[in-house]
C-alpha cells in the first residue's frame, strides 16, 4: 500500500533531531509538525520572518499581524523570534536552517529539483523555494513516486524548469524512502506491502537496490 499523506509526514518526522531549526513547505511538509516525536524540541522557521512558529491561534488569539509563509494565521511559541524577510533569508541562504522539507513535481538522480513551473500552465511564482533549496544542505523532498498515469517523477534528468541544481539528497515518496548520491537514487526503505519490483518499475532514474530493503513500520492509529 502506498503511504497516506499522514504516514509520509510521520516518516519525515523521524528525521527530526532535538535542537533542529526546520523549515516546512506547504502541503505534506506542513503536516510533519503534527508528528514531532516526544522528547524532541524543534524550532519551525517560516520564511516571511518567524523562527518558532506555534499552533494555529484560537479565536481570541487571532491576529492579522501574525501569519506564516503560507499566509495562514499562526501564533509564536515561547522562545520565538520575529525579524525581516532579509534576515530570514540570510538564515536560509547562509545554511543556518538544519532541515528543509518541501514538495516537488520531479527530482532527478543528480539531486536536481523541479517544483515551481509547468510550462503552458499558469505560473504563480517560486516564492522562497529557490532560496531554500540553494541554502539548505539537508533537504527532504516529499512527493508522489509517479503520476496518476504511472509516469515516474524520479528521473534521470528533470524535464521541467529547475528550482535548484544538485541540491536534493533525500526523497520520501508514497512508495519509498531514497537517498541521492553520486548520480543515483539509493533505495533505503519501502512502504508497507510495496515490492522492490514496483519501485524499480516506477523509478526512471538510475536506482541502486541494496540486498535488503526494510519495510517502513507505522504505529496503529
Amino acid at each position, binding site marked *: 500500500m502506498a503511504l497516506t499523506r499522514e504516514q509520509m509526514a510521520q516518516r519525515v518526522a523521524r528525521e527530526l533531531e532535538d535542537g533542529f531549526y526546520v523549515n516546512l513547505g506547504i502541503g505534506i511538509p506542513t503536516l510533519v509538525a503534527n508528528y514531532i516525536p516526544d522528547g524532541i524540541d524543534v524550532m519551525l522557521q517560516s520564511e516571511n520572518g518567524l523562527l518558532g512558529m506555534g499552533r494555529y491561534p484560537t479565536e481570541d488569539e487571532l491576529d492579522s499581524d501574525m*501569519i506564516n509563509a503560507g499566509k495562514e494565521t499562526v501564533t509564536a511559541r515561547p522562545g520565538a523570534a520575529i525579524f525581516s524577510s532579509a534576515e530570514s533569508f540570510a538564515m536560509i541562504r547562509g545554511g543556518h536552517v538544519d532541515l528543509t522539507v518541501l514538495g516537488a513535481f520531479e527530482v532527478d538522480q543528480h539531486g536536481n529539483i523541479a517544483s515551481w513551473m509547468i510550462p503552458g500552465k499558469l505560473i504563480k511564482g517560486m516564492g522562497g523555494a*529557490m532560496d531554500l533549496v540553494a541554502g539548505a544542505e539537508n533537504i527532504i523532498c516529499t512527493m508522489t513516486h509517479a503520476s496518476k498515469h504511472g509516469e515516474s517523477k524520479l528521473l534521470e534528468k528533470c524535464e521541467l524548469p529547475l528550482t535548484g541544481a544538485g541540491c536534493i539528497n533525500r526523497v520520501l515518496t508514497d512508495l519509498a524512502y531514497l537517498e541521492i548520491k553520486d548520480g543515483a537514487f539509493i533505495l533505503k526503505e519501502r512502504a508497507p506491502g510495496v515490492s522492490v519490483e514496483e519501485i524499480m518499475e516506477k523509478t526512471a532514474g538510475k536506482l541502486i537496490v541494496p540486498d535488503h530493503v526494510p519495510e517502513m513500520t507505522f504505529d496503529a492509529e
Partner: protein
Amino acid sequence: MAGFDKRVASYEEAMEGIESGMTVIAGGFGLCGIPENLIAEIKRRGVDDLTVVSNNCGVDGFGLGILLEDRQIRKILASYVGENALFEKQMLNDEIEVVLTPQGTLAEKMRAGGAGIPAFYTATGYGTPIGDGKEVREFNGRHYILEEAIVGDFAIVKGWKADRYGNVMYRHTAQNFNPMAATAGKITVVEVEEIVEPGELEPSQIHTPGIYVDRIIQGSFEKRIEKRTVRS
C-alpha cells in the same frame, strides 16, 4: 520649524510627487503589513505605467490588487502572484509584465539598493531559468549568479508605531519586507497606526531609523486576513 518632524497632514501630501512611469517599492507579505492607505492614494491619483516591486500583488479588491483595476501597473517584480483573478487575466493577456524573483533575492535586492550595493552574488536560482543570461561566478567551488539591487522612486511602508522623527517599529510578522523597502526609496513614505513623541520609543528597539524616512502619516487600517486558520 519642521526640523526632523516627518509628519504630513494628509494622504494626498504623503504621495505628493508620484508620477506615471515611476518605480514603487512596497512592503508587505500577502496582505500582512501592507501600506493599504498609501496604495489607495496611488489608485485615487490615477498614475499609471508603474513598476511595482512587492512580494505579492494583493487580492481582488484589496491591497495592490486595486491598482490592477485601472491597469496602473505595467510591470511587477514579485516572488508569488496570481492569488487574484484580475492579475491572472492581465498576465495571460500580456497586459502586465511579471518578473518572478525568488523571495530571498527580492528582499536582498531591496536591502542592497538601500545600502549602496549595486549588485550581489547568490546561489539562489543558479541552474534555473532565473539564472539565464546572468553573470555566473564560482567561489569556493560553488556557482553564484549576479543579481542587481533595486532602488525605487517611492517606497511605501506600513509600520506599527513611529515617532515624529520617523523612527519606526513594526508589529509581529507585519515586519516582513517593510524594513528593506524603507531603505530603498528615493522618497520613503511610512504609514503607521500610532505616532508618538520623540523619546517615547526605546532607541534600541527601533527597526527603521528615521534617516531612511521622508514622510510619516498616521492612518486607520482594515488589516484584512487572507487565510484565517484557527484551532478550537
